[in-house]
């Protein structure tokens, strides 16, 4: 563990008359893996957007002890990586998979400096770790959703962030690819000593290294603690206002209607 790398106090986001986040307070320590879980419209993605610096907000957000707003310095942005849900890209778009990974390094390199051999080797070794190195020279738009998501993970890690934000990174992928991506995320957490915030609403697809879960409902934090307690039938039934039960089979968690 270690000191808090991220502290939120009374973070509120209001759009027109809708309250998207209602006074969220949260503290996340170095190397923690925290899940943000909740039904649709709970505010999970909005909270991630606030931390990533995409969304204006009221309240206080401190990253590494420094108070930040949505307009933050380059140095502050470099320390927070972001992996979006798989996004559609035009198959004809002129970018190769390797170039998409190297895009993660552009901010760190600064102006007037291009990625050299060392940077390209680092990008290739990350692509190898993600098992997409053979696709390095293929246009990104021609890769499958799972391959694109692995490229996206490699891009975010190449940025060398201290905090990695993931917005449902396994959404829309088939079950085998989902498991493969989750294993890669576990690997990344172990190897890179990263603090990870992971948004999901799929309880069967939780990375095994995630120990803490924050449950959100209608923009408010309703639970913060051990992931097993968060995903108990009682807790989920309350969150989704529907009878649900959790059971385990061969060490895997399943959630079903109660």
């Amino acid at each position: 563990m270690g000191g808090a790398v991220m502290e939120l106090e009374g973070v509120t986001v209001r759009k027109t008359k809708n309250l998207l986040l209602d006074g969220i307070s949260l503290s996340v320590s170095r190397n923690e893996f925290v899940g943000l879980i909740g039904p649709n419209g709970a505010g999970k993605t909005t909270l991630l957007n606030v931390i990533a610096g995409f969304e204006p907000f009221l309240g206080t957000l401190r990253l590494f002890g420094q108070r930040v707003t949505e307009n933050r310095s380059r140095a502050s942005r470099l320390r927070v990586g972001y992996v979006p849900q798989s996004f559609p890209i035009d198959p004809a778009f002129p970018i190769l998979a390797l170039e998409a990974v190297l895009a993660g390094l552009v901010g760190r390199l600064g102006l007037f400096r291009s990625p050299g051999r060392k940077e390209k080797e680092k990008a290739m070794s990350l692509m190898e770790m993600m098992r997409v190195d053979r696709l390095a020279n293929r246009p990104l738009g021609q890769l499958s959703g799972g391959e694109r998501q692995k490229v996206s993970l490699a891009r975010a890690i190449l940025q060398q962030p201290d905090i990695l934000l993931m917005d449902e990174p396994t959404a829309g992928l088939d079950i085998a690819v989902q498991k493969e991506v989750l294993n890669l995320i576990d690997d990344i957490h172990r190897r890179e000593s990263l603090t990870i915030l992971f948004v999901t609403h799929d309880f069967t697809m939780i990375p095994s290294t995630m120990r803490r879960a924050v449950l959100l409902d209608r923009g408010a934090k309703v639970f913060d603690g051990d992931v097993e307690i968060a995903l108990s039938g009682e807790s989920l039934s309350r969150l989704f206002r529907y009878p649900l039960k959790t059971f385990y089979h061969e060490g895997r968690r399943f959630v079903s209607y109660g």
Partner: protein
Amino acid sequence: MVEQLVEALACQPIQRAVVACVLCGAGCSMLSVFVVLMKMPLIGVSMSHAAFAGAVLGMLLNVNPFVSGFVVCLLAAGILGPLSDRSDIAPENVLGIMFSFLMGLAFLGMGILTRTKAGALNLMWGSLLSLSGSDIRILAVITTLLALFVALFFKEIRTVLFSRRLAASSGVPEKTIYYALLLLTGAVVSANLATVGGLLIFALLVQPGATALQLTYNLKHFFLIAAAAGIGACVSGLLLSYLFDIPSGASVVLMTTVTFAAAYAASPKRRASKNRIKETIPCK
């Protein structure tokens, strides 16, 4: 026909027009890469109409049309940029409203102007053969600035084109790049009112980029192909207009469409994607 062309190229106004075509083709084509890859053709059309409306206003107020066109473009960029960043308003709607408002403003000005200045019509269609030395100098400076911007910030530009949000998250000054781009769009469009005009320039802000999209996955080649397509269409359009005595702006625009159609027909990317679809559909 060759003799006719050689004779034409010896005239100073034609030489000026050829230089203007090269500069106009290069400048607009570089912008078309952004317009096509950011899927924002309405930005191009709104900016061209902002320049057009500003130039008409300038003629009404006896101000240099390039200066007034550029100022109105800057104002339009100042409104378009923040509005298209807001998530509660669809950027297409904002641009649609802006485009129609600017067109209304321009035509209102044209209605008043045509009674006093017949030359005002050149702002709509352009007039390659009546360009002055200062028109060419302004065009050269602005096209050079745009080329320098692309060359110096190529890796940042690629990241912004790929995804503005991912660019921001990885510490790229994406807002600065985006606003610089809007500013340069205003400058290029205003400078080209005299060459192809405020209405026809839109074709050059889309079609060279759309042509390159058919032919390459390499962004550097993309810029080069777009520039070659734009310059080729401008120069060939000018020469055809001279040979067949047709309006130059219109023939330039038609040549951009011919170039795009040829690229579409020959597109290796389109054929490859067709083959991929065939491979995934089992044969009966």
